[in-house]
């Protein structure tokens, strides 16, 4: 197997598998931690419906940051929405329901948001005081992925055939546009890294709210 074949046929599955395993491991580990000490913060939303409503509002609006930290919110909100948007737009593009331009636009946003946040964390003295190299690394990682994605498009070859093959478990190295290799590599590495980074809050948030902050008697 050549390097190109590995990248085209094995690496995407490996990255996704490691992402799922890493996330599952973190989830199960946190779930298994005992909670002898009740550390509830009052008041908290009543009932499952109330808690889901609060959580949905928080996830889809970043309401707490919006209220108290508007400049950070602009970057953080756009960044998270762009990450979700990129996945969604890519699927719609592969399905033929969106033009490639839409994916490029979202990649530009995915580049702009980390750049903005790096600048904000560098020049705001309070954010700078609490920012570690890991935060910068994470942002630059995302920006690099966006750059790689933009550099690969438009390519001479449409990536649609490759990705459809990938999804049907019949990946074909010959259909992978070479310009897309850096984006595939960076995207895969990001997935592998994600569960072990501070960005694991897509899992930890559930426990921090439901199992600690809102813990019932």
């Amino acid at each position: 197997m050549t390097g190109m074949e590995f990248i085209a046929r094995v690496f995407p599955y490996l990255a996704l598998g490691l992402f799922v395993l890493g996330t599952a491991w973190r989830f199960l580990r946190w779930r298994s931690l005992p909670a002898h000490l009740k550390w509830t913060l009052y008041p908290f939303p009543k009932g499952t419906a109330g808690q889901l409503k609060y959580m949905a509002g928080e996830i889809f609006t970043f309401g707490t940051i919006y209220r108290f930290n508007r400049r950070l919110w602009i970057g953080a909100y756009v960044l998270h929405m762009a990450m979700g948007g990129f996945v969604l737009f890519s699927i719609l593009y592969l399905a033929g329901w969106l033009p490639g331009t839409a994916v490029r636009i979202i990649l530009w946003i995915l580049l702009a948001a980390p750049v903005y946040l790096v600048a904000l964390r560098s020049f705001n003295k309070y954010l700078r005081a609490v920012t570690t190299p890991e935060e910068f690394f994470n942002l630059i990682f995302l920006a690099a992925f966006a750059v790689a994605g933009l550099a690969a498009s438009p390519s001479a070859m449409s990536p649609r055939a490759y990705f459809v093959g990938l999804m049907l478990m019949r990946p074909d190295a010959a259909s992978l546009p070479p310009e897309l290799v850096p984006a595939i590599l960076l995207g895969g590495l990001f997935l592998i890294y994600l569960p072990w980074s501070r960005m694991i809050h897509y899992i930890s948030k559930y426990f921090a709210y439901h199992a600690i902050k809102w813990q019932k008697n």
Partner: protein
Amino acid sequence: MLHPPLDQQPIDPAYPFRSESPLSREERKARFLGALKGILELDLYDRPLKMYLDTCARCNNCAGQCPVFQATGDVHDLPAWRSDLLRRVYRRYFTPSGRLLGRLVGAKKLTAGDIDAMVEAFYRCTMCRRCAVHCPLAVDNALITRIGRVLLAEIGFVPKNITVSVAAQLAKGGNTSSIPPAAFIDTLDFLEEELVDETGINIPIPRDVEGAEYFFAAPVSDYIMEADTLMGIARVFHAAGASWTVGTENYDAINYGLFYSDDKLEEILNRLLAEVRRLKCGTLVIGECGHATKAALLFHKVFGRSEYRDIRIESILQVTRRFLAEGKISFAASKDQGSVTYHDPCNLGRGLGLYEEPRELLAAAGIEVVEMQPNREMNLCCGGGGGLVVAPDLHDWRMSVGGLLKAEQLRATGAKTVVAPCANCKKQLRELVQHHNIDMEVAGLHDLVGRALTREEKA
């Protein structure tokens, strides 16, 4: 430099609290790390502590909620920065990524300078938990502060006044104010005489009554400083016809272990529970004291000996509110109290959810409350929380930093009286209104509730 090493960070010269450890600087590091390892191996803190140490998005949302940071604007008072003092040590020694990648993942080798920075930082936090209310990731910096203090205590760093109070309390028959039993009984007699003078009827403060339903324990300082609160509580119990008692072998609900030591917390709590058991009472009622109520209610099932687990624990706020709901007490037509505002003690509010009980009691007593802004879960700490009110060294800091926003908040209400059902809050608030020349009286909840009662003749 993006992140200056902590031992190069200047320590605030205006902050007077210093504590000396008997250990050498090298010994401190070794013992600190050993203690952190021990805590991480405990089941007790597993879920919240590891979650908080693993997670923080460094968004600084907490900064906007922290009254200390809001008063100083100093980066050292950023809650996330403070918590990071411990978080980076945890990452360096107890996570694979921290061992492997060090500073790249925010991990840092512990230095004696870091410990110095922690001594100051963790005793500039009032543990009010306001920062946790709007943390998007639900991180509670107050728990990290508490664990930081527990670790510092292991190497000898504890404010002297706290250790002196705790030592006095843990002495045989002791209490934090060192009031001897004979003087305590004299005080009870005096309060009974005062009650006769005030009400014209005999309202006993029962002592050592075996089998009483309620065992009442106040912060012992109330017997020196808060006679009106205690008399109000006696009037409530009496009017409700309740079976209650105080114990003459342990009459101090204060538990400063909450602020720095699990061992002390456990010992103090169990001594109090032993007194409840000695008198065969079913319910321990904690008087108007935020931290004492939280220490007893929250840690009862964790640190209370198994033979004491059946003892019920309640706040006097809950008990009085229940008496009202059951029709056991009622109030006379309102006398004009002047404008009154209510201060939500952090430990009773954010810590235990007792927001409405005091308000309902005040309303039932015909007392209209001018709410502070903000209030309830967003209320500002008095500035003396986390045990800081105990340290006279910190008086100036509490007035000019810790309680600065509180003073402004009090003034803005225009009220003539602030009600605070917490001994520590009342002490701090009295000092604040005096220091900031605010024309306001400070009172306990039962001071007002007791005076408004109608049916004291009942029992």
